[in-house]
């Protein structure tokens, strides 16, 4: 790959084109390998596809671009503080639609920081929820029979079905 290339183009699983800077793409191991393997010069037509839908990929790229400078150069503690705040804002997203897609994308793209952030966000969300709230927000069906519920209640006094 030529060193003059500053941004690459990738396709989402929906077939949309996205630009991502080289330094941001380095946050993901598989993207990094792509950079090394695929020819990204102007006379090359091949555009790699990333198995992540457009809506999710927009967010993943936004995260990469924000974190790239620190990941590539190492920054001061005040930057780290600022980045932490940014992460919290960034994760204020519609759970059922996108959080789990982000988590799966971070897993697929080997992005440790985003993976941990997504897991922790999901966990923090669940911490304060009742069982029925969790079922509702995550679209989970209660598949226990009433006898099983009764048994669970006896075995685990901490359990609550509401």
């Amino acid at each position, binding site marked *: 790959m030529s060193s003059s290339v500053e941004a690459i183009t990738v396709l989402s699983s929906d077939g949309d084109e996205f630009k991502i800077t080289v330094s941001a793409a380095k946050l993901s191991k598989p993207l990094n390998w792509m950079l090394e393997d695929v020819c990204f010069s102007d006379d090359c037509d091949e555009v790699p596809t990333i198995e992540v839908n457009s809506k999710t990929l927009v967010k993943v790229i936004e995260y990469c671009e924000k974190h790239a400078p620190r990941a590539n150069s190492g920054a001061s503690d005040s930057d780290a503080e600022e980045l932490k705040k940014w992460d919290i804002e960034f994760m204020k997203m519609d759970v059922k639609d996108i959080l*789990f897609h982000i988590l799966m994308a971070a897993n697929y793209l080997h992005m440790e920081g985003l993976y941990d952030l997504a897991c922790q966000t999901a966990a923090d969300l669940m911490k304060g929820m009742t069982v029925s709230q969790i079922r509702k927000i995550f679209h989970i069906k209660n598949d226990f029979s009433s006898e099983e519920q009764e048994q669970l209640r006896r075995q685990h006094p901490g359990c609550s079905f509401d």
Partner: protein
Amino acid sequence: MENLPDHLRIEILLRLPVKSLARLKCVSKSWLSLISDPNFPKLHFQRSTLHYTHRFPYLVQANQMRAIDLNASLHDDSAAISFDFPSDYDVNLVCCRGFLLLLHKKGDKLLVWNPSTGERKQILLPKTCINFELHGFCYDESSDDYLIVLASLGCGIAFRVFSIRTNSWNREFAFNHPASITPLYPEVAGSVVNGVIHWLVRFHEGQIPENNILALDLKTDKVRQIVPKLDDFEPRVCYLRVFGESLALIDATIDYNEINVWEMKECGGKSSWTKVMSIPRNSEVGALVSPLCLTKDGQLVTLHSYLTPLTLSKWSSEQGKLEGDRICNSSLKGYCCFAATPLYTETLLSLPSQQS
């Protein structure tokens, strides 16, 4: 969520506190089976160990205990947990992997209790142990067993060990020494680092008694005497704590103007000590702060032992030196019942089943 692969769902569940997990078992069958998997409690515990998820337990009433999450803001009441406390037991002794070890008020039996799961086991004390002066509670990975050690001091020390797995007081041995040995404080639990239990005791040999550390390795039942070689270390206010993975000795200077934290490193059977922090006397809190532990963010948690109501503070540290500011402070109602202030970690672990 049901579309998430199991390993990602487990990653999320591992980050949840025990209290939430109990509730989440009722969400659906697949969640129940993930949380009930026999490996889950171990993974969950390993994660909390990595993140130093210490809680500070104290009694609110005779039969109610609260445990404050030291990683959360000390003002955050929602991060605290409460549980019923068996009021016929004394509130002290020690915690190991989520199990509290308690002594009955009559002094004749012990209770091993996991407040999160409700599992409990009573252990009768042998007559020779009723007046024990040192105690310790640790986990032996190689035999997947929990061991309780009681020791009586005199000239030398007599040890008795209870194994949960065999359900018996199955070991007895002695540390022979000509000096008369006394505890520095009553009811101080041994500090466990790498499976070795450490106690700070006083040796009365020459004219001036000496503070030494006894390190008991339950793999070999051997006791090692460690003489802390510190600058100007004299028998006065000092005690042991566990900081991260290391044994720490807390020591006040003679004028009480500074509390020092010394960390022990071991190399080839030799121990060396490094001063890792020093807390200057602070007009607001005085010198009598007692360092408890480090949080996952590297902040130091201290207990203000002589303030009423009981107060905890967190300090941020920079380059091993503590900044003087209190960044968080919480006045606890109730009283501290832990002479040795053990810390508690919530776990879903269960005791090993007994072998016949």
